[in-house]
């Protein structure tokens, strides 16, 4: 028995690795090509047909004939986060649809310190364009430049990168604030009349784009004609997980026992965390929340949200992945792409219609 132990560990490792390699291709979520190959470019209708319920608005009309060896790579910040997992599924589906190779690495739980190492690993595939979401991309700019690889930042702009695709933060935040105002306005004339209203923006102080998003939420809220007594922006910390949202909101509720709160959360995780804190504190009548993202975690929250979540600005994470591939192809061809602002809001009334697979 002991004799086997040393060898068995080696064999078990190799067997497991081979097994995992077999799983790799089967796990990709792929879409069927919508148009027959031929001259010209894919149209928005082709993309709409191909993306189905994900309803992607294309950012670039991709030629039907691409170089055979067009190769892309994406360094995902956290596949354990539902938004980025959906994004991963989206860019894999797009790569499959457009017929380009795409290789992926995962930073685990936002381990940005490992980004350059992960790039080095993917560099053996000689990608033309590499994508990443990171607040600290300076080292990656130097590395990709040295290799002649184009860097397409995603979500957070990187100074010196060759391109950026993400959410127009101001427009997104403004939309969230407007939706929140619509949800809060009737309450201010009824149950919340005469009570002190606090606007709460849940963002990450270390990531300016998230702060711009929630600060624009306040702008949209006020532009809709509602003036809160005060506005606060507690820091969700590094990861902005459900647990972070719960922790921050629980403390915030404790510190504001008498106020009513209008909350814009930078993502679904933080918003759902805040929802759980509100429910745990029994403050359902005092809080309304709008989240940004509409990933699986956010959408499923409508099943048990006590009416606290007014709406979710649909960033369409799957579509964001798809669009990253389109933008990367455009960048590889030195062509322009257009970043659309989100205009769709998910509510408990339309979630089943817009996401019937949930």
């Amino acid at each position: 028995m002991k004799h086997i132990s040393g060898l068995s560990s080696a064999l078990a490792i190799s067997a497991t690795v081979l097994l995992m390699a077999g799983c790799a291709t089967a796990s990709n979520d792929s879409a069927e090509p919508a148009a027959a190959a031929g001259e010209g470019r894919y149209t928005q209708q082709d993309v709409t047909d191909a993306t189905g319920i994900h309803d992607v608005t294309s950012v670039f009309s991709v030629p039907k004939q691409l170089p055979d060896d067009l190769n892309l790579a994406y360094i995902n910040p956290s596949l354990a986060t539902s938004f980025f997992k959906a994004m991963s599924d989206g860019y894999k589906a797009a790569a499959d649809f457009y017929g380009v190779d795409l290789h992926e690495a995962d930073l685990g739980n936002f381990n940005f310190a490992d980004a350059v190492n992960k790039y080095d690993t993917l560099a053996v595939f000689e990608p033309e364009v590499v994508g990443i979401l990171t607040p600290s991309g300076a080292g990656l700019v130097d590395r990709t430049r040295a290799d002649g690889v184009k860097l397409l930042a995603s979500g957070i702009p990187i100074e010196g990168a060759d391109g950026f695709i993400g959410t127009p933060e101001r427009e997104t935040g403004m939309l969230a604030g407007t939706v929140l105002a619509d949800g809060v306005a009737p309450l201010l004339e009824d149950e919340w009349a005469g009570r002190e209203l606090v606007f709460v923006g849940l963002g990450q102080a270390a990531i300016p784009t998230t702060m711009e998003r929630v600060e624009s939420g306040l702008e949209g809220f006020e532009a809709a004609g509602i003036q809160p007594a005060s506005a606060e922006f507690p820091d969700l910390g590094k990861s902005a997980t459900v647990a972070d949202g719960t922790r921050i909101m629980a403390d915030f509720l404790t510190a504001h026992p008498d106020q009513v709160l209008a909350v814009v959360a930078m993502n679904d995780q933080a918003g759902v965390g805040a929802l759980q804190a509100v429910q745990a504190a029994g403050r359902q009548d005092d809080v309304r929340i709008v989240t940004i993202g509409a990933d699986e975690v956010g959408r499923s929250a409508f099943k048990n949200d006590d009416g606290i979540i007014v709406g979710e600005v649909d960033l369409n994470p799957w579509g964001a992945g798809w669009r990253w591939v389109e933008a990367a192809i455009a960048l590889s061809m030195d062509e322009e792409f257009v970043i659309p602002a989100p205009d769709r809001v998910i509510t408990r009334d339309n979630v089943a219609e817009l996401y019937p697979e949930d």
Partner: protein
Amino acid sequence: MTATTVAQQGTPPTSPPPKPKSDPIDRILDVGIYIALGVLVIVFSIASPYFLTVGNLLNIGQAVAQTGILAAGVTIALIAGQLDISFGSVIAVTAVLVAVLTGAGLPAAVAVLGAVVAGLLVGILNGVLIVNLNISSIISTLAVGTAVTGAAYLLANGQVIPLPDPAAFSWVNVRVFGLPVPMLIAIAVYVAGWVLLAKTKLGAHIYAVGGNSSAALRAGIPVKRIYYTVLVISSSLAVLAGVIVLGRTGAGDPSYGAADMFTVLGAVLLSGIGLGGGTGSVQRTFVGVLIIGVLANGLVLLGVQSYYQQLVNGAVLVLAVVMEAIRRKRRSR
């Protein structure tokens, strides 16, 4: 794990512990880690045409340098019987401090010197808690690490601080004779670690203190000084790793180092080192580091989803722990 909770009897070993009797089963257990590394290399070489290329092997060397440098420090401390888990926080504070100081206009060398001082202070503070206040090393270094991480966030005001002049740290990304500088530094650290542990009196004392601190004390070995020394070595190597991360990323981020806990401790545990001290070597830790690095690299090349990667990493660690348990049980007979 505290300075006084080791066995009260026996004589201290004054050199690396003698090899167990030449039992073939023990030998197999001892070489299991090398077999595992060899098997991984063969499997990945067959499964991916990219794996066994010079460029990729150098990538692995570069990627494991940081983990390796940290693991060397943790190994030396652990041989002396002290588990230092504050290394992640030292990386964070190093990267942030250097970024802040250079941002304030100080030369890079002065900023790095500031980080070295901070690292030494962390090592000394760990020593005070463990040696003078007799608190468990896990608890002490966890507490100090938490506080230091908080200090890094405070220093950075929660932000990522870009280096004002990344060129000052561009040497981190240079290759000498085709080899990445971080890899060369890691190799130098391991050679120095091997010399220290196997060829010097201090190394013999480290094994002696880790094997039986009471007996070592009776034999005239300065136990407290040894503890301080290994803790300072560990934190100093963490500063070195922090400078490398800073040079690689071009920015100081207080979240750096948080994810290194698993990889570093995983590599150290894979080496078969006992948590009780008195055993282990940096050579075996080096192989453990390579296993972790080869797995991380090979699974990405194969396109294996990261969830499976975590599963594989966890399975490898479980196997390592089981092997060590078997080895310990056999030796105790």
